[in-house]
């Protein structure tokens, strides 16, 4: 219950910080805007690419816009780095909570707030754009979205935990963000890639943070193997992140002042 309260007040906290809210809300739409015109040009020459028609790709970029905003945890390592250097992390470490879950639910509340406009945009698209989404897909999509959130958060939590060892972690954070952007299906569906590369990338964890939940919602289908890999990465990353955090925390020296 206390963790749900953390998510609730974090949601409220994010909505009240109006400037942050507006900036964080606008940013994903600018990418979406570019994607739209890029794909419009591509599909003016081809009717179908990688199993997608133009209307399907529009639905894809809107859904991916929502998912990537919702699961985003890329700023978490920076927050860890800053609070470790300034010493403000100490005020959170003295609370009687599991730090992983404390940050998980804080991030969940925040991401919910920042994704609100995407939910609205997707609903508008659904009503006006004639995009058909089956109820069964939505029912599978919701748990996959939360699993994707857990997986992505856990990966960045591991990166954030490295602050106890290296203090400065901006470099490694950017590498992970870059890999996530490239192999997560945020810019285009991974089915656009040659099969060999596709086969490799879809076994990496990033593909399950955005591309896989989007495919579920858009009815692209999934196999038993996909589910097993998805669950494997999510559990592995979650347990690893908790263990790595606790292990590295014991060796910490600083916390600024």
């Amino acid at each position, binding site marked *: 219950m*206390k963790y749900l309260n953390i998510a609730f*007040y*974090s949601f*409220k*906290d994010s909505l009240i910080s109006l400037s942050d809210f507006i900036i964080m809300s606008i940013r994903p739409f600018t990418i979406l805007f570019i994607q739209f015109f890029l794909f419009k040009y591509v599909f003016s020459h081809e009717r179908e690419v990688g199993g997608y028609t133009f209307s399907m790709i529009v639905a894809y970029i809107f859904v991916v816009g929502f998912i990537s905003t919702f699961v985003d945890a890329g700023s978490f390592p920076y927050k860890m780095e800053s609070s470790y250097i300034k010493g403000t992390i*100490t*005020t959170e470490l003295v*609370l*009687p909570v599991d730090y992983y879950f404390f940050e998980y639910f804080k991030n969940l509340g925040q991401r919910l707030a920042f994704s609100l406009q995407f939910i609205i945009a997707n609903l508008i698209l659904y009503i006006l754009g004639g995009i058909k989404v089956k109820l069964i897909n939505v029912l599978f999509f919701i748990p996959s979205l939360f699993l994707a959130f857990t997986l992505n958060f856990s990966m960045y939590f591991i990166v954030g935990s490295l602050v106890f060892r290296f203090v400065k972690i901006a470099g490694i954070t950017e590498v992970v963000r870059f890999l996530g952007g490239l192999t997560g299906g945020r810019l285009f569906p991974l089915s656009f890639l040659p099969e060999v590369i596709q086969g490799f990338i879809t076994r990496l964890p990033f593909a399950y943070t955005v591309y896989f939940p989007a495919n579920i919602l858009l009815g692209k289908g999934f196999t038993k193997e996909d589910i097993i890999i998805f669950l494997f990465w999510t559990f592995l990353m979650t347990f690893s992140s908790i263990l790595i955090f606790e292990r590295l925390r014991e060796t910490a020296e*600083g916390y600024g002042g």
Partner: protein
Amino acid sequence: MTVLMEFIKVSKKYRKSDTLALDGVSFELKEKERIAYLGPNGSGKTTTCKIMSTVLYPDSGKVLFHRQNIFKMRKEYLKKIGVMFGNKTKLMENIKLQDAFLLLGHIYGLPEKDIKKKVFYYAERLNVGHLLDKRLREFSLGERTKSELIGTLLHDPEMLILDEPTIGVDIISRYEMYELLKDINKTRGTSILITSHNVEDIKELAERVILINKGKVVFDGGFPEFKRRFGVEEKDVVLRFRNYTEFEKAKQELSGFVKRIEGVNLHLAIRDEEMPRVLNKLVSFQDYEILIKEKDLSEILRRSFSA
């Protein structure tokens, strides 16, 4: 009195800077006790507080609370203590203060009714009741500090660890905090360990003083003995004369207290018990300004340790 916390031969080395922050430090904190944990900058005070609050792990030694290792019962232990680091907050800054307290109370598993009751009581005591509908980010430093103290007290901790809690706080707010802390210590038996560079904090709150330097305990005793040994009971008094004859007269009559002379300014060092006698003499002089300063604890400690 029962022993609440035991710090047994605790050492901590910062490898990156090759600094031995704590070198086999041992002490006990009993129930209802109020301890000032003092030392010059970099002496190991904050490291001690961080180890006591499980933020840092010691390299060797044990820290026990009710005879149990605090690192093996971390969450349970943290529910029983209250920790406050000066100028840092555990309250969310963008939501209303009362919501921030509600969240904190929920984290400690308190019922909403209890949280509200306690918040109202403490807010009245610390004069921040009018701020409950405002957001922390809009507060002054004093208001933030008082709010943080309320957050630290919400769950009725058995022990308080206060690391420079009054840093940057004005005198009125400080006295409101002292009164509340003394009251809680008296009525609930809450033990207090405080670090500070402010003499007033120590005078008001400490019964016992532990002095640490270069990671080792160099003094552990009652506050009266500490005052005698380190001259805390002295005040610096500056008399600025506008009349040379009066200056000469004062110089002779107060010769036993004169520490330094700058032009027609007399710098005196006066012990607390001698203050009434000196004040009586001051009445007989004319044409001067008086400035009374509390001794700076950091300065006292720096001089003591460098001597």
